[in-house]
């Protein structure tokens, strides 16, 4: 089903992603990115119809941590604002639905995460089933490794192929000045076998922001808007042992509902923090060898938790803005082993 209103990503900005940013608070890290997207559109914060953000208290180690970041958007006098305790891709989804209702014509979406103050592998265990799983403290790398071994057992990949994904991603990232890991990166030792350090994302801090606009407003704000033709997100059973870890039916269904299979895409920005997850996603999304996958380097080059999914949509949109893509797919994931997945299909006007 086509959206009832044409809505586009008209601007995208992100920080340089770094191992630590301890000289800055979250809002200090975020604010230059907010001003970047506002400057690109010539808008002021007071021109924005709706604001939505994504972040995590567990990452920050503080309750209601997102309220501090609100200082960066000028929330007085009161603004129309919302927050998701998730990756900013889901904040973008909320903003998109808000624009669909006609209540607003523009939206500012931002997301940020500082992993450096804590241990992100341990922090992410707190999003797991609290009865049967979280008391065992299985960290994010361990869970991804279980999925990787399942793929290897199923004959869908092997360690050299995974190393190839890592190498291709970080080579692509050499053209991305924001990326944290670029160029030649050693595969290294096993972190949790079969995953080596090279199969895993860097741990880092960063932020990203996107501006959405509807209809003619989008054309006023951007020379070549990245129209959102469809966007959908789906979730699977939380029990890891209930799911087939070698497949991602939620990604496939979200892609179908977003219209991804109606025509081929030329670019796909996949949120695959682990090399093995790219194998699963390529299959679920039926991406052929002719699709440019993660030209930004993807999450293997920079994985600011809570922003990395929004960045995928932003990178896909930016390719359209720059005329490098006509139809691009942006994907975001959340939860262990690709539990929840969001797919957005973006298009530029015909040339």
């Amino acid at each position, binding site marked *: 089903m086509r959206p009832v209103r044409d809505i586009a990503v008209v601007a995208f900005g992100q920080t340089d992603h770094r191992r630590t940013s*301890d*000289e*800055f*608070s*979250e*809002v*200090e890290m975020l*604010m230059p990115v*907010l*001003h970047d997207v506002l400057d690109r559109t010539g808008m002021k*914060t007071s021109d924005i119809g709706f604001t939505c953000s994504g972040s995590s208290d*567990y990452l920050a*180690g503080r309750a209601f941590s997102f309220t*501090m970041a*609100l*200082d*960066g*958007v*000028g*929330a*007085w*006098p009161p603004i129309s604002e919302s927050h998701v305790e998730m990756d900013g891709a889901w904040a973008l989804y909320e903003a998109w639905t808000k624009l669909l209702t006609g209540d607003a014509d523009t939206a500012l979406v931002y997301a940020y995460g500082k992993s450096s*103050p*804590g*241990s992100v*592998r*341990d*922090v992410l*265990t*707190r999003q797991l089933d*609290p*009865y*049967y*799983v*979280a*008391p*065992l*403290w*299985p*960290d994010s790398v*361990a*869970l991804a*490794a*279980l*999925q*990787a*071994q*399942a793929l290897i*057992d199923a004959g869908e990949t092997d360690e050299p192929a995974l190393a190839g994904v890592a190498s291709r991603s970080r080579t692509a990232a050499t053209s991305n000045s924001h990326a944290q890991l670029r160029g030649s990166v050693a595969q290294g030792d*096993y972190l*949790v*076998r*079969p*995953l080596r350090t090279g199969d895993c994302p860097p741990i880092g801090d960063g932020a990203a922001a996107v501006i959405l606009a509807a209809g003619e407003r989008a054309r006023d704000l951007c020379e070549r808007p990245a129209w959102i033709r469809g966007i959908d997100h789906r979730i699977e*059973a939380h*029990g*890891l*042992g*209930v799911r087939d*870890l070698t497949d991602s039916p939620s990604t496939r269904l979200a892609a179908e509902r977003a219209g991804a299979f109606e025509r081929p895409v030329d670019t796909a920005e996949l949120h695959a923090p682990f090399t093995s997850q790219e194998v699963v996603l390529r299959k679920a999304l039926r991406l052929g060898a002719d699709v440019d996958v993660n030209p930004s380097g993807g999450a293997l080059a920079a994985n600011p938790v809570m922003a990395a999914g929004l960045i995928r949509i932003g990178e896909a949109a930016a390719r359209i803005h720059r005329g490098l893509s006509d139809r691009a797919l942006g994907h975001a994931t959340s939860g262990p082993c690709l539990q929840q997945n969001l797919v957005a299909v973006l298009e530029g006007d015909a040339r």
Partner: protein
Amino acid sequence: MPEVLKAPLVVEFPFTRSLGPVQSAFLTGLRERVVLGVKTGDGRTLVPPVEYDPVTAEEIRDLVEVAPTGTVTTWAWNHAPRRGQPLDTPFAWVLVKLDGADTALLHALDAPGSDAVRTGMRVRIRWAGERCGAITDIACFEPYDGSAELTGHDGLFEDMVTGIVAPARLDYVYSPGRAQAAYIDALSERRTVGERCPSCQKVYVPPRGACPTCGVATSERVEVGPRGTVTTYCIVNIKAKNLDIDVPYVYAHIALDGADLALHGRIGGIPYDQVRMGLRVEPVWTEGGRYPDHYRPTGEPDADYDVYKELI
């Protein structure tokens, strides 16, 4: 730029969670060395059991016993165990499909090395010595070639476990960022600094690096105080844990001279029922204190309401 301020921050909480009928039976079963699954409408047995069918969302309650032996469906070798994980020696994370179950349970497998682990290998539960009705009643799995008898249990136990306490602890190193670090640094010299918004000219104390009205970065550092005005206050009648202050006492918003935002602090040196809006106060530092212990009256005439009404 001065040295980045850092301090350890520990967030610790004992999450108390109640159990539904199915989870209660499962965890009570583990305490009694019985493993229970739940049957779905289409006849599959889910272990660990859940209260709603993950496919149809139908409520399911039909408990069925499965064996403490099973088969590894996938695994990952963890050579460097982390705090809280089931074993503190190298082990394999495993998903195990217990005999009689159609889904797999996540846990740890004690094995001498990664060479001893493979998908399809047979394992059995090693029970914890002391069990309380928690997933950790399974100490881990261990390699085992045989199979096991069922106890014939129906899932009804005396003294059912109805809840769990799941302690969680995360360790952080907190750094306050540029603006707040400058504020804390100045406090060490018993000075108070804020930052002025380049757009609306307001001075924020303590500064957070941004003007919440204008949404721009604040940068110009401004020294404020030390004296200030009580803009509003409340009388605290309940003693806080670990706080060595007699009640009742007054907690107030104090607009330091030169600041456009009130900060808060305790008022001392005056009976609690004589504190008032407009009272002029100054900070009182104790030896070695990193911030003012409290504020006391300066003896000046009260400030005129019009002077501070915008700061309430």
